[in-house]
């Protein structure tokens, strides 16, 4: 008996009869799940008050089971669903997963487990998931990660571990994820990162580390990923970015260092970004840091003057010191300071640091904000203008 025709995109809402592929016989799935039929197969979407299906038609390619009070999935729920491509299980209360639960679905491309209560994954859960491209474990209860959980994920491009309780990461976590493009570790409790975290054949484009407790950006961290395009380090406790941390980042187009504890940065830090001859396309943000606006930031001032139209949160990027500069925007100080350095010329009192001539096109510098409150400069040299 067939309840529905096989027309494209026909929507049905009633009891679903299983195909006879299952050795357990025909089992109707519960009332209330929405089923869409197409030439791709069955797309099944279950939300309360529907019941969670205990088994699926053999042609299921897309399954959504969300917003249930479910601490465990029915065992063998994926039995026979060999065509499954996407599995959306967000917003349940899953506390554990059976180690073999994904074995019937080796073609799975997307697994979304956002907002459950998982404290870990059983060993071998993902061992047959060589086709998995997207794995989302956002907002679970992960406190530790074992690198072995991710073994076999050779197609993985997108890994989201944000919103968990991770304090540290195992070495070699990403070692064999050759296709990984995006890694989201935001909103955890990471205080430090293993220095070799990004080593390996992966080709990372996007790295999210916002909302953690990092205190230092180590110089070797980013080196292995020269094609990194977007880097989010905002909302940490960064007091130090080591010299050379940005070396080799030829494609960086977004850098968010806002809301940290940076008072200063080492000389030459910005040089690799400045020397590329192109701006960061998506912008950068260094606001909400306690910047001490003295001559140690000369490199930064020059870079800001050259790239300020890509700068987010300009009004929130201010000096916390020294006393004379307190409360000024970095751009105002940068403008005045760069002008002063030009007027001093190369024979001026202080040796110029940073990239050599030809990189900073002085003709393109915009004059400082003289129409604003006078900016106190921090040397004993008199201001050239009042």
């Amino acid at each position, binding site marked *: 008996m067939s309840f529905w025709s096989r027309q494209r995109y026909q*929507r049905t809402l009633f009891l679903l009869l299983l195909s006879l592929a299952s050795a357990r016989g025909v089992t109707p799935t519960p009332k209330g799940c*929405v089923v*869409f039929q197409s030439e791709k197969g069955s797309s099944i*979407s279950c939300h309360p008050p529907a019941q969670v299906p205990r088994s699926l038609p053999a042609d299921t390619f897309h399954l*959504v089971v969300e*917003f249930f009070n479910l601490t465990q999935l029915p065992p063998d729920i994926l039995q026979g669903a060999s065509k499954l491509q996407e599995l959306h299980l967000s917003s349940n209360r899953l506390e554990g997963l059976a180690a073999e639960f994904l074995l019937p679905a080796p073609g799975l491309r997307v697994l979304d487990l956002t907002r459950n209560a998982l404290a870990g994954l059983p060993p071998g859960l993902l061992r047959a998931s060589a086709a998995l491209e997207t794995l989302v474990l956002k907002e679970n209860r992960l406190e530790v990660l074992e690198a072995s959980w991710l073994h076999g994920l050779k197609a993985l491009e997108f890994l989201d571990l944000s919103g968990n309780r991770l304090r540290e990461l195992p070495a070699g976590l990403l070692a064999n994820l050759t296709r990984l493009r995006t890694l989201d570790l935001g909103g955890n409790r990471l205080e430090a990162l293993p220095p070799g975290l990004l080593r390996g054949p992966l080709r990372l484009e996007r790295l*999210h580390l916002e909302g953690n407790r990092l205190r230092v950006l180590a110089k070797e961290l980013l080196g292995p990923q020269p094609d990194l395009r977007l880097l989010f380090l905002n909302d940490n406790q960064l007091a130090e970015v080591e010299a050379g941390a940005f070396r080799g980042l030829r494609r960086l187009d977004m850098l968010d260092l806002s809301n940290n504890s940076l008072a200063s940065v080492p000389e030459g830090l910005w040089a690799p970004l400045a020397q590329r001859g192109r701006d960061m396309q998506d912008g950068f943000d260094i606001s909400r840091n306690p910047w001490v606006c003295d001559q140690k930031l000369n490199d930064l001032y020059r870079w800001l003057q050259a790239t300020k139209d890509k700068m987010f*949160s300009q009004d929130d990027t201010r000096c916390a010191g020294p006393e004379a500069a307190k409360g000024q925007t970095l751009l105002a100080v940068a403008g005045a300071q760069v002008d002063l350095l030009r007027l001093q010329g190369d024979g001026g009192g202080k040796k110029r640091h940073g990239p050599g001539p030809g990189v900073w096109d002085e003709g393109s510098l915009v004059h400082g904000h003289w129409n604003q409150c006078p900016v106190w400069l921090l040397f004993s040299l008199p201001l050239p203008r009042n």
Partner: protein
Amino acid sequence: MGDAEAGKKIFVQKCAQCHTVEKGGKHKTGPNLWGLFGRKSGQAPGFSYTDANKNKGIIWGEATLMEYLENPKKYIPGTKMVFAGLKKKSEREDLIQYLKQATS
């Protein structure tokens, strides 16, 4: 009134992975969003939506986007969009302000 500059940063951080905004921008995992405001859900030309999204039948505007972006999976059950949503009202306001400018 949301801050479009802040919204742009939110877009880059949370949306640009899967969406473009400019006219003629490509579809990625999600549809290009040009022309979003005033359009019925599931109608960006050339994108393969789930039936859940196509059948939602609402018009995108500030109010519908405020609700949607808080919890996309709740608003459009069955969507394949893997995005948990923006809890903070101010972030949604900022993002919507940016989208208003960037998609029209």
